[in-house]
Every structure is written in C-alpha cells, then in structure tokens.
C-alpha cells in the first residue's frame, strides 16, 4: 500500500504536509539544489514588505541550547523585486508558493494582499502578525484579538487566495487570537512564530544580539508549539500548520498527532538544507508501518490517557 500524503488547508491542496517556513529558506530558489521543489508541499518565502527592508543591525543571531535567537528584522527585497525576479523562477521550478508578508499598518497589509492576489504562481498567502523583531506591525497586532480581527478581515476582503495567518506564541492564551483570526476569515493558522528570548555574552557583559531581545526557534521550542497546536485544535475546527523545532519526520508526526494538518520546517534548513526530502519520506514510511492510508487520517489522532 502506498499511503496518500495529500492534505488540504481549506482551499489549498498540497501533495504532502511538508512546507518550508518563512525566513529559513530564502525565496525558495536557494533550496532547489537539495531536491525537486515540486515534490515539496509548499515553500513559504521570506516575509515581504511593500518596500525593500534592510533589517536590523548586527549581531543578529546567536546559538542557544538546541535553539537559536534571531533579530533579523524582516530584511527582504520588497514586493516588486519578488514579483519580478524571484516568482517567475519559482514557477518554472514547479514550487507551490506561499507568500509570507507583513506591514507597518493595516493599509500596508491590505495593499500587499491585493497586489499578490493577481500574481501568477502564488498559491496562498501567509500573513505574519507575529514577528517580534520589528517596531511596527508584527507582534502588537498578534497580541490583541480586536486588532488581529481587524487586520485579518481587511486582508480577507482584499484577496481570494487561500489565507494563512501566522500567530505568535508570546500571548497568555493562544486560543483567543486563534479564534479572532478564524472569525475574521482565515483559512488556516500557522502555529507558531518565534518565542521572545534573550542571551548575554558574559565576557563582554553585552546582550548577544544588538537589539537585546530576539526570537527563539529550533527544537528548544517544539514542546511549546506542540502544546499550542493541540490547544487550538481542541478549541476550533480551522486547519492548523504546525511549526517550531521540527528536526525529523518523528517531530513532524508529533505535530500531526497534536492536530496539525501540515508542518513547516524552519531552523533545521540551516543545518540540514535537504532535510525536507527525508521528512516527506519518513512520514510515508510511518503511515505504512502503522497501516494508515492517508496522512490526513493522522491529524489529531492523539490517543488520550484513559
């Protein structure tokens, strides 16, 4: 029996549940040497803003136990350069493209969504209301349910593309924001963006990052991400994309069992850029070994303790 790996995130159909997370795979093109991009569920490109952004001053990254902190600050080439230079190449490689984007205000989000709506080769949008590393937009929107509802609703009106909303874990109860985004018309939720963290160089007594605080990612955050996926799955019927510290197929399956329909690989791409190929194969192997016909049948199939 060959298991069926295809999954659906609302209107977005994917050949398998493995995606590459925004900010960890460049514009997708950088990953082409490691495998056939058309065999990947989808690639989520580096978060775009309307205008190119230079990002934050260095140092911007530091390693932590089984994790890393970053304060890249959403450096990106801007919407126009993405559409003109990156997207046509991605289309030729047969990649399913999810465009991650962020704005400094609601009007920015709306304009980005509207301009991406007509772009050939964009399969879905992922709006980032969760970046801890920029002054405007980002985190505040994702921490206030009323603001989150407003900005998601505005984007929803501006696009017919499948809409994913990426949430921050830096909240007391992630279900509150999840419900606000779902009510405002999100087709799926991506859980989670990075957790706020900090590291200090004790020799220099300086913060390890120029901006002092950054976003924690990697295996260190996986238990938090799995917990949040599970909590939202219990509360809402909306499809969820699990993200946070996936290193192996085993980790991806953990997210599926917790209730994610798909997963994103993030920091692992830095250490193992071709890992997605193994994760897709590993999910297939697991389904075979457990006699499960479809990846979709695994979603949320956590066995409760009696």
């Amino acid at each position: 029996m060959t298991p069926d790996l295809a999954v659906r995130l609302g209107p977005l159909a994917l050949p398998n549940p493995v995606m590459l997370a925004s900010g960890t795979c460049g514009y997708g093109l950088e990953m082409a040497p490691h495998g056939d991009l058309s065999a990947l569920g989808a690639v989520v490109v580096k978060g775009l803003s309307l205008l190119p952004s230079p990002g934050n001053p260095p140092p911007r990254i530091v390693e932590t136990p089984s994790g890393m902190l970053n304060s890249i600050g959403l450096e990106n080439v801007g919407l126009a350069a993405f559409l003109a230079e990156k997207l046509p190449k991605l289309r030729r490689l047969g990649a399913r493209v999810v465009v991650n984007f962020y704005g400094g205000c609601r009007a920015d989000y709306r304009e980005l969504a509207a301009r991406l709506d007509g772009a050939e080769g964009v399969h879905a949008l992922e709006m980032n209301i969760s970046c801890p590393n920029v002054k405007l937009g980002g985190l505040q929107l994702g921490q206030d349910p009323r603001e989150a509802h407003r900005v998601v609703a505005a984007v929803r009106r501006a696009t017919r593309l499948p809409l994913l909303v990426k949430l921050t874990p830096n909240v007391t109860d992630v279900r509150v924001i999840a419900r606000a985004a779902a009510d405002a018309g999100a087709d799926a939720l991506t859980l989670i963006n990075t957790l706020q963290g900090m590291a200090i160089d004790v020799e220099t007594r300086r913060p390890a990052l120029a901006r002092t605080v950054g976003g924690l990612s990697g295996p260190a955050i996986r238990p938090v991400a799995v917990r949040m996926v599970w909590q939202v799955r219990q509360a809402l019927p909306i499809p969820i994309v699990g993200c946070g510290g996936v290193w192996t197929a085993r980790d991806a399956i953990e997210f599926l069992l917790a209730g994610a329909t798909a997963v994103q690989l993030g920091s692992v791409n830095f250490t193992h850029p071709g890992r997605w190929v193994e994760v897709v194969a590993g999910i297939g192997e697991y389904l075979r070994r457990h006699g499960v016909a479809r990846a979709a049948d695994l979603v949320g199939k956590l066995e409760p303790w009696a």
Partner: protein
Amino acid sequence: MLLTARSLRVLSSDFRLLDLGWPAGEPDPAPGQFVMVRTREGTDPLWRRPFGVHDFRRGRGGAVLSLLFQVVGPTTRELAACGKGAVVDVLGPHGRGFTLEAPEHWLVAGGRGLAPLYYLARLARRAGRPCRVFLGGREAGHVLRVPELERRGCAVEVSTEDGSRGRRGRVTELLERGLARASRRRRAGILVSACGPHGMLAAVASVCAAAGVRARVSVDPLMACGRGLCLGCTVRAGEGYRLACQHGPVFDAAELSWEAP
C-alpha cells in the same frame, strides 16, 4: 557530504591540522572559501561551524581538503579527536574567496586567521608571484606553519604579543613597517590579504588605506547556515549590510565600515 579523515596533526597546544578526503567529482574550492562542518548527531550544538579551506590538493590518492583549527568548543574538540577513518559531515565550499591576480601578494594572519591564507600563499607561489607573510599571535604557540611557508618560497615575518617569538607587538606593525619601506611603484602592485580578529582587520584596513594599497579581508561573524538562508551573518558595509557567507567572507577592506563592531 561525508568526508573521511586521512590524518590529524597536532601543530601546537591548541591548533590542529586535519586532512579530509574530498569526493571525486566535486569541484576544487577556491582560496578564501569555507565549508560548514558538523561532527555529531543531535541538536546541541544546533549549527554547523564554518572553517576556511586551509589547503586543497589533488594527488594520486584522490583530492584532500585540509582544515586548520583552534580548539575552542564542542565542534573543534571533536574534530581534534578525529583519528584516521573518522567521518565528518561537510557542506560547501561556500562563499567568495581571495583573488590571485595581483603581481605581488602580502598576507597578514592573526592566530587561526592563517587558516584560509595558506592555500592562497601556495597558489600565489605556484603562479610565480612573490608572497610575503606576516604572522601574528598572542604567543609562540599561535604562530603556525612557518617552515612550510618558507619552503614554498614565502618571506615570513613573525610577531607575538608576549614577545615569545619574533618581534614583540602587533602583526599590523610589521605590515606598516613593510609598506613604509616599499617604493610607491611597488606598492601599486601589492595586494594585501588578511584574516584574523576584527580589531586586526580594522587596523589592516586603515594601514593599507593610508599607504594607498589594496586590501582584502576575510571576516568572521557567527553563521547559522553559511549560504544566505538565515540573513544572520551581516557585516556593515557603507550605508547598508552585506552577508559574510554569500557576498564574502572575503571583502575589499574599503567596502566595509570599521567603526562599529
């Protein structure tokens, strides 16, 4: 790709030289390029570590990549324990390296900064170019590979901060003195290539700018991916930023901003 250790040499108390078999069919790395190395399974450390191509040779027994490293943490400790036959996981070569086109090459190395310069010295000598090497270190044990450089026809000058070998002081003082003695005409043909701590590179940049000599430097920021995916290895250049792993690690010294770290 998985590379097999051919030999490991102890150069001094904390420096080692590791020869790794390079797979057939893989292209030759260029001097100044680096590889991303991982020595163990698991997620701690999370990242691979960058190491410059210290030397690269093709011979009858296949191609060999040499790494020269200072033992400072988990990855270099494990590399230092790589006996013959040990397997090391390597990605690369990555980055843009040094250029060889100058009539005369002057190399400035601080401690482990010699790592990427040795291959450059060897290729420069093979191309028949004069090559002068300024080697600096904290102490005698940080001054490496002097006989090998001399055997290849490089003129080597040494300084240490504690005076335990060569002149006491900083390596950039040797460079400054050398440049002051060279005629204006000769200076026009010299290309300085440098690798070492940030402060040393800043001094090389300013000495060379003052003498009107071109300088290229290999920078050393933290790298998570080594190939342009994370945007973490930024260095300041003029008004904006450049990625050390993709646009460098070798840059024209004049292109970078040296005031801030």
